């Protein structure tokens, strides 16, 4: 491990620890009938809430980062990520359809697959559609894929709005706030556990396949010559990225750009080898989302905190444009 890579790891881990420390020590305190935000040692109860928020954000950031990394290798496109490829919108549409159907048929959402089921079906269908649309005779064309993702994402976003129009005000408000991206403050323990297991399994698979991932970034011929079963690898990446993105969306709504920015940041800090890049992306994703959660604690626009999706989009959008403008990328 070179000195630069060591520094990169230190920076990543330091950022995660710092973001977590800020998040845990900063929160609301009662001030008469009003509330104000302040640094301080939290009570046991507040610590439980803030700890859950940090764990939830870290797991979510990791899932999004790994999904982004897998997609970037799968599509050989450095701009690929769940949000840009429309997967988040597709998963969102799946969730909206489940909620609206549950309302229309007066059934509990879990009886028709639940939000997670809807998100996974929506994400899988979107990914398949975008891959099909983005394919040319020469294989997957990066520009075509991004265009297909943007258009398919727009269609699903509009379809979600259509569903919103058909449900009562209360449910519409829930859907709209969910579409803006929100971190559950009191997450379901089962959902956290599911996300943790998923992240560990997906991260483990990606880590174990890191050599194949390195080779998959080369041309098909070079990859096959190196003994990598490209079809199998791509099928694994397809499933992994779809399930990771869908679970992340089901947990917190569509949160953009973490899947794009985290692998790129990690790549700059620890280099392109996937043996280091997979865990580094996971740490970068966790640090970024915990940090984004910190940022929204500091911003009070008079009506409470900003949705987390707004913070990540405001920071990640320019990062995407910077990468697009820079034009020197490697998957």
């Amino acid at each position: 491990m070179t000195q630069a890579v060591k520094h990169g790891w230190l920076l990543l881990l330091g950022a995660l620890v710092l973001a977590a420390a800020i998040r845990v020590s900063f929160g609301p305190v009662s001030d008469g009938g009003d509330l104000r935000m302040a640094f301080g040692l939290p009570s046991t109860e507040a610590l439980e809430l803030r700890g859950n928020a940090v764990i939830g954000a870290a797991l979510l950031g990791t899932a999004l980062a790994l999904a982004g990394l897998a997609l970037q290798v799968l599509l050989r496109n450095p701009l690929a990520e769940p949000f840009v490829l429309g997967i988040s919108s597709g998963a969102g549409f799946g969730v909206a359809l489940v909620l609206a159907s549950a309302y229309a048929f007066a059934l509990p959402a879990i009886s028709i697959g639940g939000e997670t089921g809807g998100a996974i079906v929506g994400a899988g269908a979107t990914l398949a559609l975008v891959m099909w649309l983005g394919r040319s005779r020469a294989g997957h064309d990066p520009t075509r894929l991004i265009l297909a993702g943007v258009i398919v994402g727009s269609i699903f976003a509009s379809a979600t709005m259509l569903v919103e129009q058909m449900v009562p005000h209360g449910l519409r408000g829930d859907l709209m706030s969910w579409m803006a991206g929100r971190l559950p403050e009191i997450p379901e323990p089962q959902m956290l556990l599911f996300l943790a297991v998923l992240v560990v399994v997906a991260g483990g698979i990606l880590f174990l396949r890191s050599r194949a991932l390195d080779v998959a970034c080369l041309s098909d011929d070079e990859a096959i010559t190196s003994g990598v079963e490209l079809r199998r690898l791509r099928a694994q990446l397809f499933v992994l990225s779809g399930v990771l993105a869908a679970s992340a969306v089901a947990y917190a709504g569509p949160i953009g750009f973490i899947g794009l920015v985290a692998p790129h940041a990690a790549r700059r800090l620890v280099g392109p080898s996937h043996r280091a890049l997979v865990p580094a992306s996971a740490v970068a994703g966790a640090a970024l989302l915990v940090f984004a959660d910190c940022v929204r604690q500091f911003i009070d626009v008079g009506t409470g905190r900003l949705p987390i999706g707004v913070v990540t989009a405001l920071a990640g959008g320019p990062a995407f444009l910077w990468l697009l403008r820079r034009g020197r990328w490697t998957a």
Partner: protein
Amino acid sequence: MFFRRFKALAGGPAVPALQKIIGLTIGLVMVWLVFDGDSPLNRGSKPQPPKPDAAQTAPEQSAPGQAAPEQPGPASPPRRAPNSPSPAIASTSPAITDSLVALGLSDHIVGRSPYCRSVGASVPVVGDLRSFDSERLGLAAPEVLFVQPPLAGVDPGLRAFCDGKSIKIVARRLESLADVDLLIDDIASVFGVEPNVGGTELQRALGNARASLALGAVPAEGARKVLLVVSAEPMLAVGTRTYLDELLAGANLANALGRDGYIELSAEALLAMAPETIIGVSETPEGARRIEEIVRRIPWKEGAAPKVAVDAVPELLSPSLAAIAHRGDLVRLAEAAK
């Protein structure tokens, strides 16, 4: 055949039959869900008749056996019912529509917004808070149009259209009970009457409505403090300088949140506030249940868990005379909190 030829021209791979069947099926189901008025999705979005207790003065919505016809599509816009009493009124504000219904004036309503729950589906949709459908509005032919304009004022296009059709626009922004009081004056003016407790039926209704506003009410010293929550995700609480705060005061309940407007409260913020009583009001029973679930799952300090009561009272969620008629629900919830 056409599809295959198209594919051949496009040079792409042939689509397997199974994919086509699945795609076609999904498409047909979507078309059915969206366009069939009887599909489960559309059934859910149709305006519901008011509950029997929706307002103290609410009359029957339609004669028994009078089925509400489906809302025609754009090709055949609905025409105004020929027997609508004068003045014929259209309202693109759910709160104003609710208020008109609460005053027993539903027979006068010939146009509504898609969000006006308190009138039947047979009343055509002529617009909403931000836009209007000139064709439907023209065919509904109201004499008066009630709107809740945005801060920028009434849409000049709507104003020009109404001038051309001799439709009187009554613009009223409803944010506080004082605004509702002004709305009572507006309605009285449209009908050419004075709110009066002892006059005609409408005058009495207007007079009673004004009396029930309890403007400027202040909760008594030592009044029970409650935190009123109106949404679960995000947890939206009612602050001061809102009509719901005024409703609380009129019900002799003190607001536990000393901040203006509607505030998103995190679970941590709720924990820091440690309110004694939380009452939750939602549009749907599911929303109410969700508020209670989240509040109960907060790790409250030993002995500091608040008393909680929730219910679906959609009428309370917009500043109207129907909301005032449901003020008692706030008291009921505060008393039921445990």
